[in-house]
């Protein structure tokens, strides 16, 4: 166990930098080379991106397609509670909901994961034992990420030790916006290493939160996406949910293009997770359409696409009940979270 206050943690010699996958192995050889690479990515046509998502948003998804989309969306939900007032009891209640989102209908699929703060990962793990539902823990001084690297890594190791299957880290937006891209890269690499388990079991999956609301431009979103993928992130995630705007469709489009291009170049699949601000079934279905039309049907699985949400699940369930019974349901027929 690494202690937060380990006096050597801050001064320890940094190991040689881990190289990104081919054909990008040399782009991190120096700060200037990395900047040249990231700034050399094609610029994003902001107007084009907006009109493309607006066009895709008009797709009409009805009847059987809608039923499929709702069930798929439910199975992709990372059911999230990230409040200062969270308690073990609330996490257990959420875990119960994750297993059986709609207790009145055994045909309703479970969600993909439950997302909690690191100190509650153990509680969530215990409550979800044997279900196949993952426990995701936010770490690295979530949501601001403003702590020393030693503290962030200790945060990650702690969550992994508690049994978290997935770690949601935040990038250092200050360093990213100041142009210190290698710092951000190294930090993601270090966190990725901290996701390893001492007993040699499969490491925790790493989701890298870009916090696109603070990156301002879509060009920056594209750069941050590539940076996170090169550093070894298994997922790139839009936002913490604590900043507005959170997940928007144009941002998601840019990230989906990035994972598609990255797969074409390196053969490695990286997942995408929009989080925050997706509250209605309509929004969720728009995202699914976007995934299918941008990254392709390969990404329409919970292993590669997730939706971070809390209130969305209830809306999905209400729509599901409407399809099943033929009449509108109401908030009395889903749990109060």
């Amino acid at each position, binding site marked *: 166990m690494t202690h937060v206050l380990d006096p050597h943690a801050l001064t320890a010699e940094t190991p040689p930098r881990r190289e990104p996958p081919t054909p990008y192995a040399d782009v991190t050889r120096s700060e200037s080379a990395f900047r040249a690479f990231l700034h050399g990515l094609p610029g994003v046509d902001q107007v084009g991106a907006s009109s493309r998502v607006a066009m895709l948003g008009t797709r009409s998804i009805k009847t059987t397609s809608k039923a499929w989309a709702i069930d798929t969306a439910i199975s992709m939900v990372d059911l999230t509670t990230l409040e200062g007032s969270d308690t073990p009891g609330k996490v257990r209640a959420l875990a119960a909901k994750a297993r059986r989102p709609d207790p009145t209908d055994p045909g309703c699929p479970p969600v993909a994961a439950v997302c909690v703060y690191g100190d509650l990962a153990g509680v969530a793990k215990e409550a979800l034992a044997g279900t196949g539902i993952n426990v995701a823990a936010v770490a690295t001084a979530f949501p601001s990420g403003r702590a020393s690297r030693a503290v962030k890594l200790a945060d990650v190791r702690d969550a992994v030790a508690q049994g978290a299957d997935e770690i949601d880290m935040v990038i250092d937006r200050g360093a990213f916006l100041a142009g210190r891209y290698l710092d951000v890269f190294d930090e993601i690499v270090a966190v990725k290493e901290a996701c390893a388990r001492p007993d040699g079991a499969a490491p925790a999956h790493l989701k890298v939160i870009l916090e696109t609301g603070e990156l301002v431009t879509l060009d920056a979103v594209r750069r941050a996406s590539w940076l996170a993928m090169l550093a070894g992130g298994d997922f790139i995630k839009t936002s913490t949910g604590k900043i507005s705007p959170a997940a928007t469709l144009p941002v998601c489009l840019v990230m989906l293009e990035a994972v598609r291009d990255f797969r074409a170049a390196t053969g490695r699949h990286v997942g995408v997770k929009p989080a925050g601000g997706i509250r209605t079934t309509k929004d969720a279905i728009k995202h699914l359409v976007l995934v299918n039309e941008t990254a392709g049907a390969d990404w329409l699985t919970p292993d590669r696409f997730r939706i971070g949400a809390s209130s969305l699940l209830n809306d999905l369930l209400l729509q599901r009940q409407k399809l099943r019974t*033929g*009449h*509108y*349901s*109401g*908030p*009395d*027929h889903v749990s109060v979270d």
Partner: protein
Amino acid sequence: MISNERLTVRKTYKLYLGGAFPRSESGRTYEVTDARGAFLANAARASRKDARDAVVAARAAFGKWSAATAYNRGQVLYRVAEVMEGRHAQFCEEVAAGEGLSTGRARAAVDAAIDRWVWYAGWTDKLAAVLGSANPVAGPYFDFSLPEPTGVVAVLAPQRSSLLGLVSVLAPVVASGNTAVVVTSHERPLPAVTLGEVLATSDVPGGVVNLLTGDAAELGPWLAEHDDVDAIDLTGAPPERAMEFEREAAGSIKRVLRPPAGGEPDWTADPGLTRMRTFLETKTVWHPKGF
């Protein structure tokens, strides 16, 4: 050459939903004509999804409106009557055109509607005293009953009396703290549209009253079956389908107010407390007596 002729400003009205004026989600409109068949305006033709959105808005508004003090609700509703008074001429014109009444009779109907609204506004803080009670019980308890609002009430407004009838079914619902989703008269929706503008510019919180112009036969089943609607007033339902709506409402154990036997009543008659009482629940408290 400058012409003195004005182009006609043709009006296309929208719905009143959650305090805003959206178009129908379906994009549909229909022509509203006067009693002789001449074009008056276009009105939005609400769809089932508008009804769904209206129920969401009404549910969201219920907490605050039902928790407001009865005194405050009375003040807010009285303010509505004031703004209605300011629109008196417009109401008269619309009622006269829609119902084919003479100016004098339309005027009388609008006067009666505003008076009816004031009458109900006055009832807000008297309901508990009149309908509540301190109950004599055989035990060491102070036992009392209080009326509480039912919740979200769907109202199929009368088809013939476009303003007085509308006020007579809407005011009793909101006076006691319920929130309402109203399907207006299909052929005579204009006074309801204007009432929506009145409500939006008075102090009634958005979502307390939602006005859907459209067809009660189309929207009725969706509202009757809706799990989040607590009661339904079938006054304006097509008579041959009222029974069907009532059966559908049973699925979610709604309170149902049946359409009056023998068609639309004389709305000028003293309304009594029946309509308010229908959309109230009674809460009884058993409070142990100390020594």
